[in-house]
């Protein structure tokens, strides 16, 4: 008997492992996933040859893009962009970058064609201050100015970092404002003084001399009112642009007297050397009509002007020219727009060859949206719409609608208005609405990964949500209510005033419904769970001064009905306080949020808050134990999970996890990890919580799991109430070693919650791995596990098999977030991973149990059936023959 038991347990374990080993088949690559790689907002760009352009971005990334299609030829991701930025990009026979910040500077040389590193050295002295970098003949010159006093120039050998040990110190009391200083070729130049008395100072950095040239600006470009500003041209020759009143003058710096070119230029200009002549490419778009771009090219020596109109329609405001390259009459101009898109313009045709939407390199809000049903299906639904009880009216209605359906069927396809954005049978085709940090909103088709529509908002920024950027995106009405259009709302922050901006739109077409600039700052936002007559969910905004605002105002009456049972909470991450607010004291005139509970977490930093997904369903109410009793899950829809980190003199850092009831403020459970530090990621689902932290003592990442059970009696099976505290849940906790660095975590979600739960973890090595919840489930301290309960034996270090990587070899850079949504197929969960790259796929935690296998042999079953039929006929014949023979015998 004992052996039988052990065998069965082996079998069980085997089964579960089998279940775990879900991975793709090789022929499924790209079948339902797509990846888009981005580089970030462009800072510097330089053409390396006629084929490619090397760019450096504010994400601290360098990349080489194909001129033909804008695809990435190679990409190298440098240190984290927080505190590290690329300050110099020099493209010659090799690519040289200087990047870094306060922690030091990295000087690197890259191979032009493949992006392999050639050499690297660092500078981590006190020279990590803001400085200027210039490359001149294998010398890297680092210039550190001190405002109002002096500047220091140090020269290094560019490939090795060797310097002659000397630092040139030049007295420079004329440095007043570093924003008026630029580098130009081997010169460093500044403007000091105001309009009429303005002076230009410049130094030849390669000369190793402390000679400063001073010149009156008046002498160069004449006297006129207006402020003079300086612009560098990022060009090998020591050329600058002196701009006054929006008109630029091209100046070439030389010892003693600079050469000034007489014609006026637009400030938005790039220099394109073309054989022995030099072309200046200007990009102009008037402020009244920013949608049209005009290109002028001017020959530097002669001032001959050539004007080209482009067909590029730019809806995103003024573009910024980065670099240009000319070969004969053909030119390529690279420019970036305010929405962080990069485009390549071909001259003289004036055609835009390609555009890269670099806004997608920093996504701050995502939402999956179900598509509307097709017109045919919709008309079937309308068939039963008529409310009049009249028999003939109904008959007429049905006949006409059926005639219409028939005509749609006969004429073939759907009308063109829908353009294929139609709900499919399994709900796998959806639209992803994505808001980006720069303020551009996109709708992306999940099947193709193409952008369906986009819209850019100028001068907006994202909120800061627990040290992360975030915007708030809600679906107010889904596409389910056919004649009514679906509606989404996006909340952003005004860059100038800090007030909220509310944008309501139709997510399918991208049509704008309303753009409202609010007159207050946003503190908390809640999508009300109640629908009005038009199936629209109201939006409740709590402003900075604790006033409640409702949108649309028609949802007020519905809210008042439920006011006594509506609660919200606010968190102050800096002070570590939490407040619960009740709407019970609202009057029809005035909706009020009154504090009902408060939490003071001490001088701790709030690092993560986890709430259960609103659309999550818990299918199974409990777990069956070996003795056939049921352990009921504690499923509290109002439960908040809070993680705080507190600095401690003895334990360095202490991680606190609190599970708080959001209605009463009761701490249901709390746990403490000493010597545990950030980063903390938290996933809260069903009756469990998974969190990751860094164990400072053992220097490893660990994962904690907490599961809450009510016990063997279910307190209230019909309706849950936070007020009725009959018993506190009993918690099981267990910790695991995690052999990786998580950057984002999320639990899968499915339509009805029958499918197993998996935890998706985005790792620093670019993989997104899938861990079954069964691996993390706390087993308690029962010692010997009963095999009937189906627990997997505890292993302290979680296995991370490569087969569990959902994005196989498509490594994703700097994962920031994971978003999941259920498909209408119970087995399937849709996943969007975003960071520097965007990746979409679907996962099936319990395999596709509700679908026929892909490799299901239709032929075999058909052949066998036919074979059986044929065989039965043949045998019938044979049998009759046999019977005949028998009779003759």
């Amino acid at each position: 008997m004992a052996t039988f038991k052990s065998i069965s347990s082996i079998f069980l374990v085997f089964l579960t492992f089998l279940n775990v080993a879900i991975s793709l088949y090789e022929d499924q690559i790209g079948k339902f996933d797509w990846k888009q790689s981005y580089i970030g907002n462009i800072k510097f760009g330089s053409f390396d040859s006629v084929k490619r352009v090397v760019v450096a971005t504010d994400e601290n990334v360098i990349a080489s893009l194909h001129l033909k299609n804008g695809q990435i030829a190679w990409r190298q991701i440098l240190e984290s962009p927080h505190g590290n930025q690329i300050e110099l990009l020099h493209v010659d026979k090799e690519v040289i970058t200087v990047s870094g910040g306060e922690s030091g500077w990295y000087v690197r040389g890259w191979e032009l064609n493949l992006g392999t590193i050639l050499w690297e050295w660092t500078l981590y002295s006190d020279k990590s201050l803001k400085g200027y970098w210039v490359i001149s003949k294998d010398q890297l010159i680092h210039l550190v100015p001190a405002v109002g006093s002096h500047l220091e120039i140090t020269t290094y050998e560019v490939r090795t970092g060797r310097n002659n040990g000397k630092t040139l110190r030049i007295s420079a009391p004329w440095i007043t404002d570093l924003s008026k200083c630029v580098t130009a070729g081997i010169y460093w130049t500044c403007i000091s003084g105001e309009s009429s008395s303005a002076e230009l100072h410049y130094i030849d950095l390669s000369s190793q001399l402390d000679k400063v040239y001073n010149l009156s600006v008046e002498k160069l470009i004449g006297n006129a009112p207006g402020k003079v500003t300086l612009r560098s041209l990022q060009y090998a020759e020591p050329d600058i642009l002196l701009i006054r009143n929006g008109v630029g003058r091209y100046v070439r710096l030389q010892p003693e007297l600079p050469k000034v070119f007489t014609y006026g230029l637009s400030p938005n200009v790039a220099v394109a050397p073309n054989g022995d002549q030099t072309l200046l490419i200007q990009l102009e778009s008037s402020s009244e009509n920013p949608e049209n771009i005009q290109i002028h090219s001017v020959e530097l020596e002669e001032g001959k002007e050539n004007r080209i109109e482009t067909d590029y329609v730019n809806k995103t405001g003024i573009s910024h020219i980065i670099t240009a390259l000319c070969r004969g009459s053909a030119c390529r101009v690279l420019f970036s727009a305010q929405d962080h898109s990069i485009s390549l313009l071909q001259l003289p045709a004036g055609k835009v060859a390609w555009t890269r939407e670099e806004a997608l390199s920093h996504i701050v809000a995502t939402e999956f949206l179900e598509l509307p049903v097709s017109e045919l299906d919709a008309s079937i639904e309308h068939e039963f719409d008529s409310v009049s009880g009249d028999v003939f009216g109904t008959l007429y209605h049905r006949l006409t609608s059926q005639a219409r359906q028939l005509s749609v069927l006969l004429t073939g396809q759907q009308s063109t208005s829908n353009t294929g954005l139609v709900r499919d049978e399994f709900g796998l085709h959806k639209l992803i609405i994505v808001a980006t940090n720069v303020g551009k909103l996109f709708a992306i088709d999940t099947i193709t990964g193409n952008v369906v529509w986009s819209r850019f908002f100028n001068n907006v920024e994202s909120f800061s949500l627990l040290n992360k950027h975030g915007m708030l995106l809600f679906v107010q009405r889904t596409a389910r209510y056919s004649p009514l259009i679906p509606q989404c709302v996006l909340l952003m922050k005004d860059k100038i005033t800090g007030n909220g901006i509310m944008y309501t739109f139709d997510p399918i077409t991208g049509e704008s419904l309303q753009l409202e600039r609010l007159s207050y700052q946003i503190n908390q936002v809640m999508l009300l769970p109640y629908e009005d007559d038009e199936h629209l969910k109201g939006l409740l905004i709590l402003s900075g001064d604790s006033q409640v605002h409702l949108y649309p105002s028609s949802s007020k009456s519905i809210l008042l009905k439920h006011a006594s049972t509506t609660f919200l909470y606010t968190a102050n991450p800096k002070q570590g306080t939490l407040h619960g607010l009740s709407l019970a004291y609202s009057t029809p005139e005035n909706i009020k949020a009154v504090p009902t509970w408060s939490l003071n977490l001490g001088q701790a930093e709030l690092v993560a808050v986890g709430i259960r997904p609103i659309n999550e369903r818990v299918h199974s109410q409990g777990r069956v134990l070996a003795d056939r009793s049921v352990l009921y899950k504690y499923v509290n829809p109002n439960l908040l999970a809070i993680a705080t980190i507190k600095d401690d003199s003895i334990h360095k850092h202490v991680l606190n996890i609190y599970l708080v009831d959001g209605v009463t403020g009761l701490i249901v459970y709390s746990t403490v990890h000493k010597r545990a530090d950030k980063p903390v990621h938290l996933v809260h689902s069903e009756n469990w919580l998974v969190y990751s932290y860094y164990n400072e003592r053992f220097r490893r990442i660990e994962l904690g799991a907490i599961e809450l059970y009510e016990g063997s009696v279910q307190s209230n099976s019909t309706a849950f109430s936070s007020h009725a505290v009959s018993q506190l849940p009993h918690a099981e906790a267990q910790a695991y070693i995690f052999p990786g660095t998580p950057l984002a975590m999320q639990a899968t979600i499915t339509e009805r919650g029958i499918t197993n739960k998996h935890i998706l973890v985005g790792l620093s090595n670019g993989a997104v791995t899938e861990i079954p919840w069964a691996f993390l489930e706390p087993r308690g301290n029962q010692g010997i596990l009963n095999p009937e309960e189906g627990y997997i034996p505890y292993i302290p270090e979680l296995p991370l098999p490569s087969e569990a990587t959902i994005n196989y070899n498509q490594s994703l850079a700097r994962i920031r977030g994971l978003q999941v949504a259920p498909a209408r197929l119970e087995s399937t969960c849709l996943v969007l991973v975003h960071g520097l790259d965007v990746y979409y796929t679907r996962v099936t935690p319990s395999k596709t149990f509700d679908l026929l296998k892909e490799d299901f042999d239709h032929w075999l079953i058909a052949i066998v059936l036919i074979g059986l039929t044929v065989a039965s006929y043949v045998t019938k014949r044979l049998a009759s023959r046999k019977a005949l023979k028998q009779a003759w015998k």
Partner: protein
Amino acid sequence: MKWLILVNFFLVFAEILCLEVTNGEEESETQGRYTIEGKVYAPDPPFTPANWQSDTRLHINGGKYLGFVKEDGSFIIHNVPSGSYILEVLHPEFTYEPIRVEINSRGKMRARKLNHIQTNLVAPVPYPVKMKPLGKTKYFQIREQWRLTDFLFNPMVLMMVLPLVLIMILPKMLNDPETKKEMEQIGSLTKFEMPEMSDLVTNFLAGTSQSQLQTKKSAKKSSDDSDFSALDSDKISSTEEIEQMHLPQPEERNIKKGTFILVISRGGACGEQPPDAFVLSRMLKFDGF
């Protein structure tokens, strides 16, 4: 044993001391920045991807410090303060084992195997580190391939074959009055059928297992042969078989058909055509089947 405990205690103590020292150093000296050096080896030639250097990165503590691989595979990670770090080599197609690199406050380097479970177990590896690929990362499941045995063991195929067997043999056996009589005499047909079945099953399952095959073989062989022996009736080995022989004799041809099917199905299962089947099919042809 006592000695062991003592040593262990000492180790822990030393570690604490070391840690405290580094803590103190970290605060006082921010300049202590060191470099970690090593070499990454490419996968062996037939699998070496072109341009693998630019696709390979090194991460220290999940990307806090970065390393890039030069053309010859060497790398230098700059700007690393003293401490204990996990060094990983990232390549989308190949797996490398991560190691732990420790830099003490005086800049002395030590590399050791990464052991998350027993953190104070030191298994040193040479420094400068040599990172060798463990192999190609397996991301995919392998699709099942079509095999004859799978096909034959397919329930549907069995469904087609078995009824045929039953339809062809059984009625004839039962219809024959002589057989009926003999059956009653001897005992039962099941007795004949059962060992046959179990023989077959054990043979399928124990297919490769020689020992089992050996023990069963003689019996099986003789029972198979009995069919032929019915034809030339000169192979009589045991009393049991004499009695069995009585069954097929009057209806030679029919039995032949039946056994033919049986043998084929078994032959397929073993993955080879047994010589018996070959002989049989020839004979059948001769018979004008």
